């Protein structure tokens, strides 16, 4: 059983905290992605799991055993680095078999494993080449091969796709996912790219400033973000966030944005939001895909909004339109057929059934 557990893990560099107390439980065979902006502590966490960094406080367990004082070579883990870290003086075959040769495995066993893994990754023909003769994508596959061949308890990936060009990145993402389906090993994957996180992970861990903001499936993170940071980080184009107040009308609640825009809150949410009536510093969040052109009669929970458009970006499949509201630039995803023009007034449909109400002070989604 190769589960990974982090308990109250702290990491300080000379009194500067990099990881400020995280708890995480990763199940056996699970693919978990640590995602967040630069400096959030995700790479530090990965390196602590690997044993490349000391743990200032807390415990890390692999397969049920505490590994705080265990050196990397005894943790039975494998790592794929951002810069591949292939041994330049060894052939691909020797690179992949290095760990096995250190463990003094019998030659035919080594041969069998290397050939099997080379087959999975499609690098069988490259076995006698040296790293400098390989392309970026090939090198990345060799790095993965080196990790897989050791049959470890846990795979660790440190931003492996950052050095590849966009097209190759998309291709390798699929490769990694296929490999995980074939070789079901617990995986911890670090990236700053939320698209990679969403496409690869069983569960995503969003980190910020050394702490975990939220852990959940991609679906949960997208549709039910717990904090303002997660709401803004996941999804592209990013969620629209605007300042607002709650108003009471007859038997319902309304969202008041500055000026004359007031949107009725869907009935099912009224009870949930009523306690925050007097609250200052509320934020209204709505994803661009829930702000569209008028495409039929209003459903309950939907409202219309009229505004002047600043910019339109025709993408073919959809047209992004941008307008200002209370100083913020709001994005809506519209049907190209609606033919909305910049500089003109337009009627937009806001589907508040998908809205989020956020407390600006604490950052929590209410």
């Amino acid at each position, binding site marked *: 059983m190769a589960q990974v557990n982090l308990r109250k893990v702290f990491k300080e560099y000379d009194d500067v905290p990099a990881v400020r107390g995280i708890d995480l439980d990763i199940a056996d065979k699970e693919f978990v992605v640590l995602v967040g902006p630069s400096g959030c502590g995700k790479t530090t966490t990965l390196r602590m799991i*690997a*044993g*490349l960094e000391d743990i200032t406080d807390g415990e890390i367990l692999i397969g049920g055993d505490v590994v705080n004082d265990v*050196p*990397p*070579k005894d943790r039975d*883990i*494998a*790592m794929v*680095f*951002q*810069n591949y*870290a*292939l*041994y*330049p*003086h060894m052939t691909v075959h020797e690179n992949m078999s*290095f*760990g096995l040769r*250190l*463990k003094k495995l019998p030659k035919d066993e080594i041969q069998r494993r290397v050939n099997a893994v080379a087959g999975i990754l499609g690098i069988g023909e490259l076995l006698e080449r040296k790293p400098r003769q390989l392309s970026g994508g090939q090198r990345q596959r060799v790095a993965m091969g*080196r990790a897989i061949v*050791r049959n470890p308890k846990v795979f660790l990936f440190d931003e492996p796709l950052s050095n590849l060009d966009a097209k190759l990145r998309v291709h390798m993402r699929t490769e990694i996912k296929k490999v995980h389906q074939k070789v079901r090993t617990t995986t911890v994957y670090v990236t700053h790219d939320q698209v990679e996180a969403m496409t690869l992970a069983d569960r995503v861990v969003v980190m910020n400033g050394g702490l975990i903001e939220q852990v959940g499936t991609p679906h949960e993170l997208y549709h039910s973000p717990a904090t303002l940071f997660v709401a803004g980080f996941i999804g592209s184009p990013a969620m629209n966030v605007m300042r607002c107040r709650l108003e009471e009308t007859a038997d319902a609640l309304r969202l008041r944005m500055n000026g004359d825009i007031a949107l009725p809150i869907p009935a099912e949410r009224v009870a949930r939001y009523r306690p925050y009536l007097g609250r200052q510093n509320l934020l209204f969040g709505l994803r661009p895909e829930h702000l569209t052109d008028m495409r039929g009669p209003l459903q309950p929970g939907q409202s219309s909004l009229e505004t002047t458009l600043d910019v339109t970006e025709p993408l073919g499949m959809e047209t992004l339109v941008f307008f200002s509201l209370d100083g913020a630039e709001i994005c809506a995803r519209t049907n190209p057929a609606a033919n909305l023009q910049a500089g003109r007034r337009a009627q937009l449909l806001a589907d508040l059934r998908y809205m989020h109400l956020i407390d600006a002070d604490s950052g929590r989604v209410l």
Partner: protein
Amino acid sequence: MKAASLKRERRWALVWSYIFLVIFAVIFLTPPLYMLVTSLKTSAEISAVTLPWWVFHPTLENYYALLTSEAYLTFFRNSLVVSLAVVAITMVISIFAAFSLSRMHFWGSATLATGVFLTYLIPETLLFIPLFKIFAFVQDWTGIEMMNHWWVLILVFPTLTVPFCTWIMIGYFASIPKELDEAALIDGASYFQVLTRVFLPVALPGVIAATIFAFTVSWADFLYPMAFTTSVDQMVLPAGIVTTLIKGDVFNWGQIMTAALLGALPPLLIYAFLMDYYIAGLTAGATKG
């Protein structure tokens, strides 16, 4: 019009460059070539002063005399033993120190690295006299034969070679990406295995360059042998040639030049075959430092 004048300018620059290069090559290569020419002359031809720059009746008698001379062969053997021993000692000390200083950090490692650089401010010409006294003292105190023995050179020559070799190796080791060590550690290597199976192969050009440097410096040193060895059977080549072949007023120039040429041969051969490593070692000290 402009393109033509640029091309003409370039051609002129090229011609002048070659002219000057030939001049300097002549200047730089004249002494060794003259050594060769003289070495092939008989004493008679030398004293006849017909034409110093050319040999009319070449002979190998000087070579024969030296290569059968007990003393000269002793010099050669001593030089070889001392140099090879010093190379071995130097490389072991330097590689371990460089690995430690460039990769593993301990209290004072940064100051030590600068300190290594600073030892070059203390030349051998400052140290030979106190060392002489120290060796005499050690001999009196412990009875170990230190005065006038060639193996003392094996003790002191590393002070000339280790600092620079360490510096070269630090430069090469530092340029190896840190992820390579980490990958090896995760693959299951101990620190020693990281050094021998990853660092040394990858830094091989640096190892070769440092080895060449250590050998050449040991082979060529003149002051320490002059100070610490006085009898012929203990001397190495540079000191031996200078002290024995120049006896009184009678100089056997043919033999002296032959001796010098043969003595210069090992470094020259190494240079001829491993020139790129030789030069890499030199420039590594400055550019990678």
